[in-house]
């Protein structure tokens, strides 16, 4: 039996395209449609979806549905739930694929309840076997991988970024095409407008240290704030060393729990490090092609946050730390203060002699 598949997305903050992860999910939706001999509908939510719709017009969907208007500009639970519900009902989809953006992670489980369906998040791959869909996701914070199937329909699946090949419009060499959009009118009740999104706030840091698109993740552990060989702490030296490294490499900064927790325990801290930087079991699981750990022991609760870092290197004074036990490709037994200082000098020298900017990856946290 053929399946109705809905690819659901919201417009990006820029308003003229979709978030990058959406095109990965569209690629997965198209592949699934082919495997299941199904029909694909695209559903879009935003203040104005016309420009974003044009970027996916060439995907070959049967329909493009949209809920649009000023009420749907920002990620608010009540309005996004109403919009997504309207699109899902109109599409009559069995399977609904969406990117695991913060906006959709907030709302789509609730939409599944309204549709009497089910939802699964953080899905890393999909497979159709004998007409049956199977999804892979992690449990216990990237420590156990499960393959699941569901009886209930519709089944909403939120896919992680970077796990599927992104759809590229090959018919028009990537350029946008004309989209025929069916706009679904949604009127919000007064109760759905009790919350107003007033803006976006960046962390108080002097520099933006979290860069989801960076090629490299640089993780600082608690060792940066501990006593060094001379019996003293050198936080004043650690801060510029780390910030210089981030500046010359364009890397994204992560921290271990023990380091980010220090700010709440009145210990010497790195001023730019917040809980938002925390990587690991109780932090984030960022996606970068490479990761460099410094002054961090590589204990399991931290390293589970490295599950999607492909190439891993670590600098630590302890040759028996967790990184040495099969968790890193290379462990340098050395003083991170010395190594990063030399590294900064070397990279700064190279950037002066090379016109090319630091390479940027394509994956999102």
């Amino acid at each position, binding site marked *: 039996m053929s399946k109705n598949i809905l690819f659901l997305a919201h417009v990006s903050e820029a308003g003229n395209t979709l978030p990058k992860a959406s095109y990965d999910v569209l690629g997965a939706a198209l592949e699934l449609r082919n495997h299941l001999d199904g029909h694909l509908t695209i559903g879009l939510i935003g203040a104005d979806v016309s420009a974003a719709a044009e970027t996916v017009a060439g995907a070959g969907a049967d329909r493009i549905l949209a809920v649009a208007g000023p009420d749907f500009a920002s990620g608010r639970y009540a309005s996004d739930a109403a919009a997504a519900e309207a699109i899902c009902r109109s599409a009559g989809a069995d399977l609904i694929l969406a990117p695991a953006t913060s906006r959709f992670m*907030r709302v789509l489980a609730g939409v*599944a309840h309204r549709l009497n369906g089910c939802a699964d998040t953080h899905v890393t791959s999909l497979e159709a076997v004998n007409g049956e869909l199977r999804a892979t996701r992690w*449990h216990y914070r990237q420590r156990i991988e499960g393959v699941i199937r569901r009886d209930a329909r519709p089944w909403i699946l939120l896919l992680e970024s970077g796990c599927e090949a992104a759809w590229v419009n090959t018919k028009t060499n990537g350029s946008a095409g004309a989209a025929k959009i069916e706009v679904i009118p949604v009127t919000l009740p007064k109760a759905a407008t*009790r919350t107003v999104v007033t803006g976006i706030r960046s*962390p108080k840091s002097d520099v933006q240290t979290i860069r989801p698109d960076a090629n490299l993740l640089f993780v600082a552990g608690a060792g940066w704030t501990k006593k060094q060989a001379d019996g003293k702490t050198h936080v004043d030296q650690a801060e510029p060393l780390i910030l210089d490294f981030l500046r010359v490499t364009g890397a994204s900064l992560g921290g271990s729990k023990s380091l980010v927790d220090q700010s709440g325990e009145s210990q010497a801290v790195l001023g730019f490090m917040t809980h938002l930087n925390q990587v690991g079991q109780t932090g984030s699981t960022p996606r970068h092609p490479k990761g460099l750990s410094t002054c961090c022991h590589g204990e399991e609760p931290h390293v589970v946050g490295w599950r999607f870092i492909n190439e891993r290197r670590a600098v630590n004074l302890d040759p028996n730390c967790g990184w040495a036990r099969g968790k890193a490709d290379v462990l340098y037994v050395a003083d991170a203060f010395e190594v990063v200082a030399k590294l900064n000098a070397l990279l700064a020298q190279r950037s002066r002699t090379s016109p090319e900017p630091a390479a940027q990856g394509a994956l999102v946290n």
Partner: protein
Amino acid sequence: MTNGYHIVVCGSVVPDPLQTLEPIQTPTGPALKNEMMLPAVLDPWAAHALYEAANLASKAAGSNSKVWLVSVGPKAKLQQVMMTIAQRVSFELVPVDSSASGFADAHSTAALLAGTIQAIPGLDRARLLVFGGWESASRGAGATMQLVGERLEILDQFQGVDQLSVQADGSFEVLERIEGGRHQVSVCSGPPALFGWATGNLPEPRNNPQVGMANMRTVMPALQRAKSVPLADGGLHFLSASPPKQQRQTRVVKDMSAEQIAQEIAEWIGK
């Protein structure tokens, strides 16, 4: 807000993060090897939610606020974890003796939580704030709280919350985590509302034996009364559950100077 808040925190137990987790197959689906033997902790994000709830309740005008902790988990595990948690902040425990497995269905867990919240005597919806972790360290779905909110018909929901500030007019300013290490700022006119907490900004409260003694007067009877409820599979079927297979062959470099290491790392970064 002169009457304070009724804050219901949803939070369960998870295996201590330092434990090795090994999946096994059981007739009812996957489980953890020696699950009942593993030391447990209150789920970290739910713990943050509990600390934030206690902090908000203590600051609310009129101090008429109350905090309930609704916890679904094996009774023995809940009792073990409460010995620690009950010493930190004041709350009334509403336990449900059921599975806290990371392989349990979020929809079934949410139905159980919502039903338990609705059955709390004297709960005032006009003052109701539902707190919980935005994800758990077990299932890690980030779905349960939304499902609880839908069942309670709460339309003002926030996930990845790091800050909740009560304004002079009784409205809330809420900071939710979004991509790129930023926060979305929203203003909600007031209760009822649901908040899935990230880490927040509060340190872990210190143990206070007096708080512990006061809590345990209600915690132990509540645990004894806790109903045992089987959790439905919700139509969720596991085809496999396995730990990651990848084990790297680590090259441990002990005999290179800082300069040589920097050179090697610089080349690796540039590739």
